[in-house]
């Protein structure tokens, strides 16, 4: 039994213009103590996946079908009160923008203690001690002074640390990090990623890292899911995805990132066209309209996920044509020396 099992999740936004299928049949398992990366461009449904797990979708979005099981307990269909027991306690989230996700009218201490008082049976004084302890853990200097300050008095990196402290105050089993470093500079990003990894090891929790940055994925993830327009293109270990991409979208994504180690400045190979309009989804593979190697079948029918390696699944008709995939999980290949 996995810690979190998501099966055939469909989440849609019912707008006046029609149904927007933000997540379209997503399944994955998250094991204890693992870091799972979900990578994709804007509109790929990676954030909506996170919001679906915690059921913090805003109107007009809702889960249409599918199942989300946490420790073998079904989350879909739980009431708000039941979900409140899980949110911030068992599963926590850090949002992208640390500037707007803290309440400007409460002190840092107030906001930190709220979760602690709600989910544990600590009293006010103990909660404050715990808040100070958490701030110290995330590397904030003079935490006794900081808990009396407001969000505007802190820098972006500090605010993100406070967010992390808040998310981890109740020692959750799963931390969902939704683009936690996108709004931060690279040197601060390095600090925050290191902090998340460090705390993940200390507390033994599982992390879902949602990002568009392949560099962040390479740095901290064990496993990766590549998403495009609400569907999974490819999944596998970080090494498999980076060194042996099989889906045409993953390959295109890799080719369009400038390589830091390339001194000759080879021309980038961009993916042509523009991202798909989620209101008018084609029946086949969502990437087919932009794919250079699209075949007739790609436009008609979505490919199923097949094994393309011991640790890698890919949903691309091209793999079937090239004969590099199978329905059975292949044996682990010996590492080349």
């Amino acid at each position, binding site marked *: 039994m996995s810690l979190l099992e998501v099966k055939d999740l469909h989440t849609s936004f019912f707008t006046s213009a029609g149904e927007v299928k933000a997540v379209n049949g997503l399944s994955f398992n998250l094991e204890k103590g693992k870091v799972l990366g979900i990578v994709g461009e804007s509109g790929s449904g990676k954030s909506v996946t996170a919001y679906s797990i915690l059921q913090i979708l805003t109107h007009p979005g809702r889960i249409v079908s599918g199942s989300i099981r946490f420790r073998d307990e079904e989350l879909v269909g739980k009431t708000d009160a039941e979900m409140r027991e899980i949110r911030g306690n068992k599963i926590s989230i850090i949002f992208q923008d640390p500037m707007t996700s803290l309440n400007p009218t409460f002190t840092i201490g107030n906001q930190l203690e709220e979760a602690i008082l709600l989910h544990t049976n600590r009293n006010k004084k103990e909660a404050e001690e715990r808040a100070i302890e958490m701030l110290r853990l995330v590397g904030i200097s003079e935490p006794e002074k900081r808990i009396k300050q407001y969000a505007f008095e802190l820098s972006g990196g500090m605010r993100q640390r406070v967010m992390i402290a808040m998310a981890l105050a109740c020692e959750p089993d799963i931390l969902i990090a939704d683009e936690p470093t996108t709004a931060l500079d690279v040197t601060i990003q*390095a600090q925050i990623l290191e902090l998340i990894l460090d705390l993940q090891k200390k507390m033994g929790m599982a992390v879902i890292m949602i990002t568009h940055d392949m560099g962040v994925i390479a740095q901290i993830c064990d496993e990766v899911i590549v998403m495009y327009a609400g569907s999974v293109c490819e999944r596998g270990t970080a090494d498999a995805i980076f060194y042996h991409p099989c889906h045409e979208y993953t390959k295109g994504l890799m080719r369009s990132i400038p390589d830091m180690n390339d001194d000759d400045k080879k021309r980038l190979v961009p*993916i042509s066209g523009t991202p798909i309009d989620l209101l008018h989804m084609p029946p086949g593979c969502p990437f087919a309209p932009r794919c250079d190697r699209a075949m007739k079948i790609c436009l008609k029918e979505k490919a199923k996920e097949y094994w393309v390696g011991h640790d890698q699944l890919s949903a691309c008709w091209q793999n079937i044509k090239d004969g590099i995939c199978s329905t059975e999980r292949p044996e682990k290949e010996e590492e080349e020396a």
Partner: protein
Amino acid sequence: MENKERAFTPDPEFLLQVRNLKQYFPINTGFMKTTMLKAVDDVSFDIRKGETLGLVGESGCGKTTVGRTILQLYKPTGGEIWFKGKRIDNKEDLKEFRRQAQMVFQDPYSSLNPRMTVADIVAEPIDVHKMYATKKEREERIHELMTLVGLNTEHATRYAHEFSGGQRQRIGIARALASQPEFIVCDEPVSALDVSIQAQVINMLEDLQNRFGLTYLFIAHDISVVKHISNRIAVMYLGHMMEMASANELTKHPLHPYTISLMSAVPIPDPKISRQQQRIVLKGDVPSPLKVPEGCPFQPRCERATAECAKTCPAMREVAPGHFAACHNI
């Protein structure tokens, strides 16, 4: 400060030469109290014709202000800007300079007027500089520019909100090209775009540069993008220039302690290299630009700081051929 008045002889090899550029902004810091925010403090550099100079640094380091001050969107507090061997200091110079120097802005959503059609946005520079004789000529030029950046000319009568982020950035680039400039300041032109679209725009900027012999000042915080597009890179920190060298040299062999830590923090999209990467994680945050530390601005966070660093601000000097750095300890 008498030496500021010393005569500067422009070098014809360079298209743009910037000397001791300063840009201070007065900030209200209390009742009847203003403090000078030194956004750019004593920055000098040259750009050759047809070259791309990358300008990197963290948010608040003054890189955008440098770009805007060069085009005199702000009146510089001090310093000189020489373009094609001529100093830009009076109104006539400035008007001609602004025809030859253009800017592409970061945010493709807020930099296009929502009440203007694409045709009017693209034609604005040629309207301002009266660069056509007939209406037909104007229209032809608009279509030429739109084709150049890969936009459908049938969309000329549409408004900006009808386009995606990548297409809007193309509109912004078409506008910048309209007055046939020689020099373009690209201020984070791809930061707001998705990776797949980013590569399209980068390739287009490179093609346009080759075709028209354009010179770019490319401002961005994404170091791998800057490395890809630039010939040379300059690094800024708290309004000061820290290091400048060729793109390969600066990314492979940075010398300034700040650049070294900056390069080590860049996430590399390769798990094996990433795992071995020795990251130098800087302590603390960037100080407020209102309270720039005494001496070298990087000194409080620098591992190699000495007593000298806290006293005097190091000047840029050539530490290796073509490699400039501002540090006492190199």
